[in-house]
């Protein structure tokens, strides 16, 4: 689906529309904003419709690119860890760090507390490194394997179009090695570093030494520790003091080799008074085997800095009978290190057979703010156990949690969240809203809100609702000429609107399209 190119068209359309609207109507500023908002919605539903027209119910990105892969032997041991590190020409400190993580991992057990059921993962039966074979990093698009370009074409992110896509710099990752980085020069001028993690380890060892593993230590949890030992690649971002990153930074992750666990690692540092918005989107090819995915994202926001991190996750969810699909165990955590810093997570989770993910904020700086906006949609036999942790440590810290779970088919969807106010966090405030929407009568929605409040000045609010898509609503839309499938898509999108509004335009469009795709066949 050429989401990217149609986005451009939409932008054009939108701009034109907004101008028209401004000319045609003499409205106050608030109205102007509302109105473009309005058109955004119109545009969204249009896009959704187009996408529905051109797709069918099967997982659209189900294909395997025929690129020669280079693989290490099956299984994991110290040797493999060393090989990974050597393959990437890593400095000694990095190899040692990986080994420390590996040794620690050997002592750990897979957590059993989530509300997830899946066959035991045999960690000895996985490949821990895979990279396209001609791995002399290409300097330009001409050097990129044509087969790879075709993969991006199928994904709707044609490389040759990216430079045209003003506003989005793409650090594209297929499997483990980053093969293309664009807009680098533009960013360089501002002193912004946006590069593959493997490159950052080579070129910016000081920053890596200083920050890697400071938010998610290598001892953190089973999957994070595994990732620390074997992480393949990921993105590294550094925004210097006072710089507002002029474009959305974007990265497309992709699993593309059978039995290859993918272990991305992303680190974003926003120095004093800077701002960055980062987009992460993923699709994966169809596989009959379960694939393990254990990523880490670490965010660090210094004084007065703001990081906005948005994800649209659409890993292969397994077929309608629950066979196959990605196991997605992700550790995402942000540290609001400085006063008045802010970290905002937005996630739209529609894929994966199993999702285990709790993007969190440690609110260390005084007056720091943490936000979590989430839509998690499960259908068929998907299972999601997702939520957030807001750890209030500084004074006058605030956090907001908006979670929208949508369950259809025979799926299970759990929100698990922790709001912790430590004893020194005077005047901490939290508001949580956890809504569940059920489609059909064979799915489950569960909410596990945990609160640990150690300071009496804290104000913590939690609201939760559970609702069903009502027949009245569907009939009302039917009676206006809208099919049941579209009606459910609209109702669900409306329900999740608060979260979609947080997404940048092109992501919002993609997210709504994915929602509708994911819900196809769930009604009627």
């Amino acid at each position, binding site marked *: 689906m050429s989401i990217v190119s149609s986005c451009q068209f939409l932008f054009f*359309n939108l701009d*034109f*529309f907004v101008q*028209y*609207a401004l000319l045609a109507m003499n409205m106050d500023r608030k109205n102007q904003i*509302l*109105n473009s*908002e*309005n*058109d955004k*919605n*119109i*545009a*969204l*539903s*249009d896009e959704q*419709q187009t996408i529905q027209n051109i797709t069918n119910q099967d997982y659209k990105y189900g294909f395997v690119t025929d690129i020669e892969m280079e693989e290490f032997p099956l299984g994991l041991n110290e040797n493999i860890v060393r090989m990974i590190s050597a393959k990437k020409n890593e400095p000694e400190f990095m190899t040692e760090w990986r080994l420390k993580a590996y040794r620690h991992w050997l002592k750990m057990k897979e957590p059993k507390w989530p509300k997830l059921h899946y066959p035991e993962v045999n960690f000895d039966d996985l490949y821990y490194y895979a990279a396209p074979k001609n791995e002399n990093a290409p300097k330009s698009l001409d050097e990129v394997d044509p087969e790879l370009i075709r993969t991006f074409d199928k994904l709707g992110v044609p490389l040759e179009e990216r430079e045209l896509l003003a506003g989005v710099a793409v650090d594209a990752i297929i499997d483990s090695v980053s093969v293309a980085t664009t807009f680098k020069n533009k960013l360089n001028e501002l002193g912004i570093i946006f590069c593959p993690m493997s490159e950052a380890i080579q070129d910016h060892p000081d920053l890596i030494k200083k920050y890697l593993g400071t938010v998610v230590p290598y001892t953190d949890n089973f999957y994070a520790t595994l990732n620390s030992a074997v992480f393949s690649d990921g993105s590294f971002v550094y925004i210097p003091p006072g710089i507002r990153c002029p474009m959305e930074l974007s990265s497309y992750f992709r699993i593309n080799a059978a039995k290859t666990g993918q272990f991305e690692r992303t680190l974003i540092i926003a120095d004093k008074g800077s701002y960055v918005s980062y987009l992460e989107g993923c699709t994966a090819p169809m596989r009959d085997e379960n694939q393990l995915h254990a990523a880490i994202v670490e965010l660090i926001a210094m004084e007065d800095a703001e990081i906005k991190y948005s994800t649209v996750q659409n890993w292969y969810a397994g077929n309608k009978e629950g066979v196959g699909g990605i196991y997605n165990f992700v550790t995402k955590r942000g540290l609001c290190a400085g006063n008045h810093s802010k970290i905002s997570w937005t996630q739209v989770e529609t894929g994966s057979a199993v999702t285990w993910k709790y993007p969190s904020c440690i609110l260390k700086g005084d007056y720091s703010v943490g936000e979590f906006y989430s839509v998690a949609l499960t259908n068929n036999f998907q299972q999601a156990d997702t939520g957030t942790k807001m750890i209030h440590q500084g004074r006058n810290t605030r956090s907001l949690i908006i979670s929208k779970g949508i369950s259809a088919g025979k799926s299970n969807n759990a929100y698990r969240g922790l709001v912790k106010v430590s004893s020194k966090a005077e005047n901490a405030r939290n508001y949580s809203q956890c809504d569940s929407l059920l489609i059909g009568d064979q799915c489950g929605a569960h909410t596990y809100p945990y609160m640990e409040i150690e300071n009496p000045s804290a104000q913590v609010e939690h609201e939760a609702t559970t609702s069903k898509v*009502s*027949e*009245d*609503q569907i*009939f*009302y*839309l*039917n*009676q*206006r*000429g*809208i*099919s*049941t499938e*579209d009606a459910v898509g*609209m*109702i669900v*999108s*409306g*329900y*999740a*609107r*608060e979260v979609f509004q947080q997404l940048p335009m092109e992501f919002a469009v993609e997210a709504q399209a994915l929602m509708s795709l994911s819900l196809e066949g769930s009604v009627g």
Partner: protein
Amino acid sequence: MLSIKNLHVSIEGKPILRGLNLEVKPGEIHAIMGPNGSGKSTLAHVLSGREGYQIDSGSAIYKNLNLLEMAPEIRAREGIFLAFQYPIEIPGVNNTSFLKKALNEIRKHRGEEELDAIDFLSLIKKQMKLVEMNEDLLRRPVNQGFSGGEKKRNEILQMAVLNPELAILDETDSGLDIDALRIVASGVNKLRTESNAYVVITHYQRLLDHIIPDFVHVLSKGQIIKSGTKELALELEERGYDWLLEKSESPS
């Protein structure tokens, strides 16, 4: 346009419509009146394709189509519009995008080109004047937080935009104050043409002061027991339904 013959409909085995006959031609306004529980709303729902009703016998032919076999969205695209007695709230779904989607579904069905945002916006702005609706309501989610009167006006706005051939107004006057009633009725009157028809379901004569019907039918126990012109409505207003009901029951 619409020909209903000997229609029998039940809900969970309980008969609601018992041999209803009705002929509607283009350009006509038919008022359906009758006491509570006589089957007025059932008629509206059955014509628009709501689930949960058992068609026991009889037929409803609309523009040579077997209406009762069509999915509700197809009926809508073929030009049937139901103004709901209780319009449904759809949280988070923008009123304008909803209506644009609806119109474009109908246009696609007719083989017409879909309207883009700009053309649609000019259309909706024009039609809003008919119902004297505040623009603010376009930006809000469908019916959410609307007052009773705003919801009804929103129904008429939708009707004005979708431009149906057969509009069924299910107690659109209920819950409206006099001003809102006048606005709704004048909207309907302005939309009236030679080629479209209205079935106006109401309890009260007062709506019919504003929307002048060509025919008035009295529905009782699932049958039309008396048909007449607008004078019948006035008579009902004066005398109530009892005299008719007694009369209709006496032969049996």
